[in-house]
């Protein structure tokens, strides 16, 4: 007769609005909140404001400036003085449009390449003997702890004309002429795949490792070949990991600066690099700000999709 339904007591507990403890709680919330407002949110408002301002001086305060003493009138006056001139400028010069498009293209291609290389690795890790898995996992994470810059730099010695790769290929006789890889898009693809591989492997491994082996046994028992079983069982069930990995690679790759700067050539333009040049070399801060705002707008869609996907996964795992 004992009613053994264990689910709701925990719900009862989760619903609690625990008695708050006044000042301590307020302080706990206020300190990190204010920090983030000042150092994270306020800077964006400034970027937005400057992107709408005119280049009058190479240094702030940029016109229009908001004068607090004038109150609402001042705010109104400032808003009227805003214009989209910098954004118009971005559409007029094909450099910017090309940068955005080529960033998207390079990020997409490298994401697919990372998936193609990362999936087998994650799969092999998940299928490895249990006592090996922790070690393999650590080997995947270890590069993440080492300097990004150094890891990208390490490829220069390999990819350049007189580098290891050409040396090796010439030695084996596969090629007669050294390949020109450094300072091309190919070098950027290699750099992105190499740097972001752990971000692809980790979520895939997490999903594949949890996959119930008896599902595959059931599929083969019902007449699937192993390859077919992979196609109809493993792959669909690992899709959440595929999505997570792709977002984790794609989103930072779009705004990447270091890789195109170090491995890419002058002909390859990516938006992160364009922003850097606009800011540091041309010293055109309003245009750099406008570039930043547009980059952000471009990334909002994938970020929201990623968030939705994560929520869905969290719900499914409950």
């Amino acid at each position, binding site marked *: *007769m004992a*009613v*053994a*339904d264990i689910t709701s*007591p925990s719900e*009862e507990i989760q*619903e*609690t*609005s625990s008695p708050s403890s006044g000042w301590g709680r307020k302080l706990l919330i206020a300190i990190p909140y204010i920090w983030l407002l000042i150092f994270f949110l306020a800077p964006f408002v400034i970027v937005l404001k400057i992107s709408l301002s005119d280049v009058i001086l190479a240094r702030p305060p940029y016109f229009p400036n908001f004068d607090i003493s004038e109150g609402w009138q001042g705010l109104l006056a400032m808003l009227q003085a805003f214009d989209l001139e910098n954004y118009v400028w971005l559409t007029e010069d094909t450099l910017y449009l090309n940068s955005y498009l080529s960033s998207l293209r390079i990020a997409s291609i490298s994401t697919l390449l990372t998936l193609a290389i990362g999936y087998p690795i994650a799969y092999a890790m998940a299928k490895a003997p249990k006592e090996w898995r922790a070690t393999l996992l650590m080997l995947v994470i270890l590069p993440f702890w080492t300097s990004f810059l150094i890891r990208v730099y390490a490829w220069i010695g390999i990819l350049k004309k007189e580098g290891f790769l050409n040396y090796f290929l010439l030695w084996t006789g596969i090629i007669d002429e050294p390949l020109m890889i450094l300072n091309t898009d190919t070098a950027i693809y290699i750099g992105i795949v190499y740097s972001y591989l752990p971000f692809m492997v980790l979520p895939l491994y997490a999903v594949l490792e949890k996959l119930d082996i008896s599902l595959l046994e059931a599929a083969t028992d019902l007449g699937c070949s192993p390859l077919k079983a992979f196609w109809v069982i493993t792959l669909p069930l690992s899709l959440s990991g595929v999505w997570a990995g792709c977002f984790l690679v794609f989103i930072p790759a779009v705004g990447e600066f270091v890789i195109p700067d170090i491995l890419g050539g002058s002909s390859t333009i990516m938006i992160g690099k364009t922003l850097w040049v606009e800011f540091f070399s041309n010293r055109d801060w309003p245009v750099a700000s406008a570039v930043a705002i547009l980059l952000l707008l471009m990334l909002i869609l994938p970020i929201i999709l990623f968030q939705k996907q994560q929520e869905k996964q969290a719900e499914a795992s409950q």
Partner: protein
Amino acid sequence: METLVNTQPVCKFAPWEDPAQEPLVRFENVTKKFGDFTAIEDLTLNIYEREFFALLGPSGCGKTTMMRMLAGFEYPTSGNIMLGQNNLQKAPPHKRPVNMMFQSYALFPHMTVEQNIGFGLKQEKTAKVEIKRRVEEMLSLVQLEPFAKRKPHQLSGGQKQRVALARSLAKKPKLLLLDEPLGALDRKLREQTQFELMNIQEQLGLTFVIVTHDQEEAMTVASRIAVMDHGKIVQVATPAEIYEYPNSRYSADFLGDVNIIEGQIDVTTGETASLAWAEGEIPLAISTKLRPQAGTTTWIAVRPEKLRISKDKPANADNCIKGEVWDIGYTGNISTYHVKASNGSILKAQVSNREHLADRPITWEDTVYVYWEKGAGVFLDA
């Protein structure tokens, strides 16, 4: 079941029957809401000193919320909770002379058994010597002296349970709350621990409130049981009273196995009422001191072990229903016969297996008679 009913102490302990007794805990019209959800609705309840009081109900019935309000993890939305003369309205957990033993035990994993047990005393700035003495006392109470220096992960489930109990008792709380204290133990250990709990409660003379969804556990340990459903108390009484005289279909069904028969009051003569329950059948006779109104729809409860069963029609039975054996549940010590009556309803009759299985005379699809005394049935209010 019969043995459980007789476990009441010989010397009668029933402060709730004595109007001169002041209750230790009083819930006065307590309501607790979480957003739109009402967990506890206008609930009034008294718990007396030295009671072993059980809150019994399915999960989600509000019993855990009641306990958490006593501990101070939740505050009532309206109404008062009194402990002696003190209103617990807004007292935070650490200012209440109430301790709790958690369902998960909640032993601090980074402290030894000793440190866990002494934790509460340390918060009160008790002298070190006194803490040591008290911890030793507690360790010997739960027979864990050799394990004082161990950490929780080095203990078995039963040992963890005893450390949790010792820790919650160390501060000598006026009221000890036990949240499903035996839920994580296996059946054998649970039964043994139930008696240990009762002994400790009696030995220390404390008031215990236990939350459980296990009716057998509640009946074994409790002096009184509150049966709860959807934030309300359905019935508060001793285990025997609830079992023998349930006041509603809910509490009859929650404690033990029961046959509930719906019908209309036919006539009442003297202290016997008769209930028309199916067309073409003789009305059932039930002893009652009340005089229920003729024509009202009502229910009666009869425990299966009070039903007898035979292949031949019994002579002068108070109530007798003819039916067909539909199913037989064999659980070793007893057999439960499910008998289908003429109106399609199923009656359960339990027979203790005194004879060998091979001699069992009644089998599937036999036509049988189920009969019982008029004193066995109880009217239910709702």
